[in-house]
């Protein structure tokens, strides 16, 4: 006879409500884990998108994400000619705000050279950029759809395709345009401002600059050798893909990551205390019944089993409710909530551990109960 299950069934409504409460708490914990993962994944998405081996940036900077970087667009040709380089592409990044159908869209504009590294890896809907001007690929989270047009700067662009999970570390969804359009977007001025500049004698003949040049290497080529070679050019610096990823995590999202990580730690601690309190209270309410069980001869293992099984059922039910809820609502979050099976597994381990420790308090109280208390005075 399983006393734990019998007791749960007896007070099923109350137990379900308790599980639901715990489930909501688990939802918050899982949401924080997902947001934490999402922050890292979002930050890395933009770095991983070009699938590059080497990033060539302005000397003395850790661009283009951790710091601003500006190098001549012609650098691409120089990098592409280097031994071991399979292909190279110039790339620009800028954040702009655009008004569209009555709302303001904050967009991360990535300029790249179609056919060269720097563009999206996969287009989930529509087609790639086919013309050299006024077409864009948008992340699905922008809300834009293929065929729609949007004004960026002084030009109107047509959405020709959609991509997924392309955004900057701040969560702004990305749009991809041709490098030429991106440079225009960066430098084009309002006609009145251009006239003022011209009157000052600035002919606007400065060569175009890009944020970085990304390069893919030939099989067997040495990344370290290439980056060292690039650094010999005094005006350039180079980072390997892994260096770029580390840099991004260590500088750009580090504080946010630690903030969420700390909050997650606090949340887990609160959850542990709440679970311990629930289990302890559940046990204290049963002390008279436990005394009766002891009096009629129930061994300690029966009493320990009653408490521990209920604690584990409570914890696992709460976690299951939490998982179900978070998978229902995770897409409603404004930023990505990324949950891996590993996270659920680790949290399950933590919750089981918390339940066991918490039930230890209840078990201690139960084992101290004098069976004589069942007899009364």
């Amino acid at each position: 006879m399983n006393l734990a299950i019998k007791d749960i069934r007896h007070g099923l409504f109350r137990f379900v409500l308790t599980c639901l409460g715990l489930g909501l708490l688990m939802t918050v914990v899982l949401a924080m884990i997902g947001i934490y993962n999402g922050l890292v994944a979002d930050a890395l998405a933009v770095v991983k998108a070009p699938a590059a081996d080497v990033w060539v940036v302005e000397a003395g900077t850790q661009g283009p994400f951790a710091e601003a970087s500006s190098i001549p667009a012609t650098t691409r040709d120089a990098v592409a000619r280097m031994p071991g380089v399979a292909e190279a592409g110039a790339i620009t990044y800028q954040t702009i705000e655009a008004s569209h159908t009555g709302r303001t869209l904050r967009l991360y504009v990535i300029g790249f050279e179609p056919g060269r590294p720097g563009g999206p890896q996969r287009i989930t809907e529509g087609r790639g950029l086919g013309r050299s001007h006024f077409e864009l690929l948008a992340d699905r989270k922008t809300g834009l759809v293929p065929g729609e047009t949007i004004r960026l700067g002084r030009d109107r662009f047509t959405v020709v395709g959609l991509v997924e999970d392309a955004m900057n570390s701040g969560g702004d969804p990305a749009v991809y345009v041709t490098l030429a359009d991106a440079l225009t977007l960066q430098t084009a001025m309002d006609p009145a401002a251009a006239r003022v500049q011209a009157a000052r004698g600035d002919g606007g003949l400065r060569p175009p600059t890009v944020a970085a040049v990304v390069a893919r290497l030939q099989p067997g080529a040495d990344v370290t050798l290439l980056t060292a070679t690039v650094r010999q050019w005094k005006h350039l610096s180079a980072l390997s893909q892994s260096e770029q990823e580390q840099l991004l995590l260590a500088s750009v999202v580090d504080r946010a990551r630690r903030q969420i990580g700390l909050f997650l730690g606090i949340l887990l601690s609160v959850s542990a205390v709440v679970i311990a309190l629930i289990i302890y209270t559940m046990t204290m309410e049963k002390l008279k019944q436990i005394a009766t069980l002891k009096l009629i001869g129930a061994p300690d293992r029966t009493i320990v089993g009653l408490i521990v099984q209920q604690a584990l059922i409570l914890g696992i039910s709460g976690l299951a409710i939490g998982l179900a809820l978070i998978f229902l609502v995770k897409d409603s979050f404004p930023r990505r909530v990324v949950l891996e099976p590993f996270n659920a597994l680790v949290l399950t381990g933590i919750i089981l551990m918390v339940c066991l420790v918490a039930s230890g308090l209840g078990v201690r109280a139960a084992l101290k109960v004098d069976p004589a208390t069942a007899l009364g005075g």
Partner: protein
Amino acid sequence: MAPGDILVDVRGVAKHYGEGETRVDALRSVDLRVHVGEVIALLGPSGSGKTTLLNVIGCILAPTAGRVELDGDAVFDGKWLRSDLRRLRLDKIGFIFQAHNLLPFLTAEENVSVVLDLAGWPAERGRERARDLLDYLEVGHRAKVKPALLSGGEAQRVAIARALANRPRIILADEPTAALDSGRAQLVMDLLRKLASDQKACIIAVTHDEKIFDRFDRLIHLRDGRLVDS
């Protein structure tokens, strides 16, 4: 009576709490023998030591001195002689409480069969024994009902069934009729007498209920921890 008929043999049992000025003597050199089929009552004012004696016989409370034998087995002689006191209670002693103390999350039948489950009976045999006992105590029709829905008399009869489930030879009852009306109390006592006779058991009950005194074979009076007469 033959020596083998003695189910409870308490000799020179003393129990005190505290030391020095705060010392309280709950039991002072108590001698008591209860035989097969006997139904005895422990009487006395509050604080006289009735419950303490019941707890000592029930192996719940260790006396300070003395010797206790239950069903021919020495269980205490200056110290507990057995480590598995709960098993001893499970096998030899049945408890009937003042407030029946049924487990609220189990049905009447389960409240009885849980004892057999703990004793290691196969589940189906345990259920059969529980149903037989409930039928015997005329509450078989309430077997699937939880204690909250039983009347006081029904709950007490289920509690008696639980106390008898593992065929203990010593039944300890703490105010078994306190929650019952006069008529029910007489019926319960008649039932306990019949059980003591049928199962070759003895019943030791703490009671204040004068209306049922005539149902006991002996009335044991306690005062200040001593047996004053019997």
